[in-house]
């Protein structure tokens, strides 16, 4: 076994010299390392857009009902009151609550045979997001942190993993687990930019520049004979922060056109979808949008009308926009929950937690367009064909973004396989 004595984190491999070269190449000022970031170089954007893989996760918090969305069973004892509607893929029907999404079905694929056998919100979310069953002794990183570590360009000024949700912002270090807080999600709560992104009012750009010059000079002296991977990383993070401060409007959805804002809708989720598009376009690697809430133990149908009524159009608009802009082929889109909901309708018109037979929607990144993988029985109570769980899905996500989930994480000081060795990718979904 090799000795894991060196840190293989990509930022550590990056030499100061290359940073400076990039900076000069971009013709920027002395302390601006503009060459680091592709998002401020439109000329490069198209190229990178084609090469760089991105991930867009919709997390339907609480547990989206598969019967009211991807796997309707109309006119059965479990089907509920809604009808199934045809989609842009002949023969594939989804619930009538998703009319706009139905028109995008030729770009999407459905995995209808998900059996995760985990009916607890917390554990279900961990399983779905990390591809590993929740274990008290070991937490694994969430998909967004994994791609932030493995797929995000190490030199980007943008954070690798941004989570957009209603409510508060902050950094969720738990997401990154042993990968470290650098790969944690930065939460954009209700569209607010990350904490301290905006320069305080009493600090002029000129004063900021001056103090930064002093810092750089001090560092130059200190590191002349002390340069380490750690000092490189520390310095690079200041460069990154300074760049991002200059481009704080990356997080400002109001900079999008009025027409687009109208297309996405004036509610929070519409704005969040438009912000997700903006961030992905600027080169951010993983965006997770949480839509809440679907945990409808009572009046499931009313609540799904309300929530999916909000979800459908902005989601479909975003899929369409990504496709129109040529980004869908390099962007993996996932619609997931902790679990699905019980086929049995309870006496409060609710559906409870159900992980035995539910659906996940995927799109983009070369996944089979319009595919339906897996099948449930007539009233949706069991998987009858191509049963998969979160481990298979996780391996599939990784393969889609060009990463081998059966390998160990690079740069860790112990051997940890990226995906659960007990799972494997859903090959027929991969092109």
């Amino acid at each position: 076994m090799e000795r894991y004595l060196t840190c293989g984190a990509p930022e550590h491999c990056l030499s100061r010299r290359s940073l400076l070269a990039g900076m000069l190449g971009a013709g920027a000022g002395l302390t601006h390392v503009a060459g680091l970031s592709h998002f401020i170089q439109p000329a490069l954007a198209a190229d990178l857009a084609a090469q760089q893989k991105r991930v867009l996760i919709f997390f339907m918090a609480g547990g989206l009902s598969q019967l009211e969305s991807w796997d309707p069973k109309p006119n059965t004892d479990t089907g509920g009151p809604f009808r199934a509607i045809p989609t842009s893929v002949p023969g594939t029907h989804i619930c009538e609550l998703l009319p706009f999404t139905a028109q995008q079905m030729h770009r999407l694929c459905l995995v209808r045979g998900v059996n995760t056998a985990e009916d607890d919100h917390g554990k279900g979310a961990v399983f779905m997001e990390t591809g590993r069953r929740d274990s008290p002794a070991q937490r694994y990183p969430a998909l967004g942190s994994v791609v932030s570590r493995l797929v995000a360009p190490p030199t980007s000024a943008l954070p690798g993993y941004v989570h957009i949700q209603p409510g508060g912002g902050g950094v969720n270090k738990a997401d990154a687990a042993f990968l470290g807080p650098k790969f944690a999600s930065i939460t954009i709560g209700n569209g607010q930019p990350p904490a301290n992104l905006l320069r305080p009012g009493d600090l002029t750009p000129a004063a900021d520049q001056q103090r930064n010059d002093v810092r750089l000079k001090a560092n130059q002296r200190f590191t002349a004979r002390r340069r380490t991977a750690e000092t490189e990383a520390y310095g690079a993070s200041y460069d990154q922060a300074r760049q991002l401060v200059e481009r704080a409007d990356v997080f400002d959805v109001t900079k999008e056109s009025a027409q687009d804002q109208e297309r996405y809708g004036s509610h929070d989720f519409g704005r969040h979808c438009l912000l997700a598009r903006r961030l992905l376009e600027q080169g951010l690697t993983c965006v997770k949008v949480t839509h809440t809430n679907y945990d409808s133990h009572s009046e499931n149908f009313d609540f799904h009308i309300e929530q999916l009524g909000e979800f459908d159009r902005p989601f479909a608009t975003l899929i369409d926009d990504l496709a129109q802009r040529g980004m869908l082929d390099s962007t993996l889109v996932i619609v997931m929950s902790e679990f699905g909901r019980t086929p049995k309708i309870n006496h409060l018109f609710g559906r409870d937690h159900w992980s035995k037979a539910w659906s996940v929607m995927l799109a983009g990144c070369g996944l089979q367009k319009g595919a339906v993988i897996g099948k449930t029985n007539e009233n949706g109570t069991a998987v009858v064909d191509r049963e998969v769980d979160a481990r298979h899905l996780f391996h599939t996500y990784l393969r889609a973004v060009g990463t081998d989930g059966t390998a160990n994480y690079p740069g860790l000081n112990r051997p940890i396989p990226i995906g659960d060795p007990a799972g494997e990718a859903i090959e027929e979904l991969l092109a």
Partner: protein
Amino acid sequence: MRHNGGSAYLTLVRLRDPTVLGRGRTAMKSSLPAQNRVRWLAAMLARLLPFVPALVCSADEAPRPAPPAAAPLHELVDQQIGAALASKGIAPAARAGDAEFLRRVYLDLTGSIPTLGEAKAFLDDKSPIKRQQLVDRLLNSPEYARQMQRVFDVVLMERRPAQHVGQAPWEEYLRNAFAANKPWDALVREILAADGADPNLRPAARFYLDRGGEPNLLARDVGRLFLGRDMQCAQCHDHPLVATYLQTDYYGLLAFFNRSFLFTPKTEPKAVVFAEKAEGDVAFKSVFVANATDQPARPHLPGEKEADEPQFEKGQEYAVAPADDVRPIPKYSRRSQLPVVLPRGENVAFRRNIANRLWALMMGRGLVHPLDMQHDANPPSHPALLDLLGERFAVMGFDIKAFLRELALSETYQRSSELPPGVEALAAEAFAVAPLKPLSAEQLGLAALQATGITDVYRASLGPTLNEATLHEKVAANLPGFVGVFAGQAGQPEQDFQSTLEQTLFMANGGVLRSWIAPQAGNLVDRLNRVTEPAAVAEQLYLCVLSRLPTAEEAAEFTACLQARAQDRPAAIQEWIWALLASDEFRFNH
């Protein structure tokens, strides 16, 4: 409770005998080269029986140099590190200057940087033994106990939130232990024996209680934190590559805990204790072996034998039988065997783990690194030295203060962090140059408070009531902001250094730091604003923030800046303070 020296000696001798070891594993054998064994015995006997060394030497027929036990440990450290460097032809870095040593040892032993007065006094001190005097003074300060409390809080709890034991009593427990210099084995014995029922020792039960009493988590963390072995990957199968990482060993540790559970009395729901049943067995099978059958595992430490257990007739297993709202007490407690067998000087893994952890605390990385990856395939950089440190620490009665003192006095610790001229790089595991140790979240916050003079403002405000405790109370109120941003994720081992966007934005634009460098009566910027002579301003600025005098070049630049910015001199001074706080030199303990 302390070990009786004599019996410890006998046990050690028995353990050295491979026939006593029984299933003697590679790790045990390879860790005991003959020469070390003799050295260890000599050290042991030198301490316990002053008249014995001659006997040992005469008993050893091979010609050998004078007993190394005569030399202080810090000299042995330097000998071994030096010999390794010499064998590789590596020239180590020069000795650290006084200022570099000063800042380093303050941060390591007190968690913060020196005050202006302390820095000046040390730099002006002409005594040839001033470094030793400083080490001794710091080790005996209340700040030392609090710093060790912070360090071991993170080591033992890994920033888990308090659930059943408050953070404050836990910290007090740890601080008292380090203030009293409680030996490590005694501290661990207390922690592993605590169940939360004894009010005096309830804080010690936090290790168990705030991990929810979860057996797998406890098995893993006891292995990692007290034995230096992360057995996680042995949960499902024998380690495919490491011969001594066996599934049976993971389950042997688990078996100490699998009967334990958190018991919540109905009448007193907050008085959760760690209780145990008399039944419940552990069995495992490898996921790699098709159709594997379950193998039972009884409690045992990795590499050791399963102990025999008393058997009771059915119905006779309990001293207090389980009943509604009654905490059961088994006649034979598996868990209570752990504090008996684990924290012992004879336990090689136990003593090597703590020696390695304390070494890493001072030297920036372990002799085995990562600290919880002690196994055959990840050998120490200096195997004999690690053996020596473990053995000597055990012989010293696990006296943490004395051990840290030896490390601090070593030349290895006191090297400069600057590479020698002409050398482009040195491997960290050679210990040829002082490492750059990232400040912990708390160190960074405390150092920034001291640097900006906020701590001085508190000192002045406390007047006659000033002492470590009253000052801490004031200062600590400022720390949550820093800790929230700079600390690692709860439940994860401390990671390799990372600098996050959140942290850098906090430093660059955050209100906390900005308020500290805005003028207020008595803080650094305020004091500097009242000094007219630029050279004097520069001197105080560098001493306060970086614990050193400015170089001539730095002083000249600073002076030129102040002269050029006579119009907005205070703003210029603030910019410099910020720049030094945000510099690499401040971020790392170098």
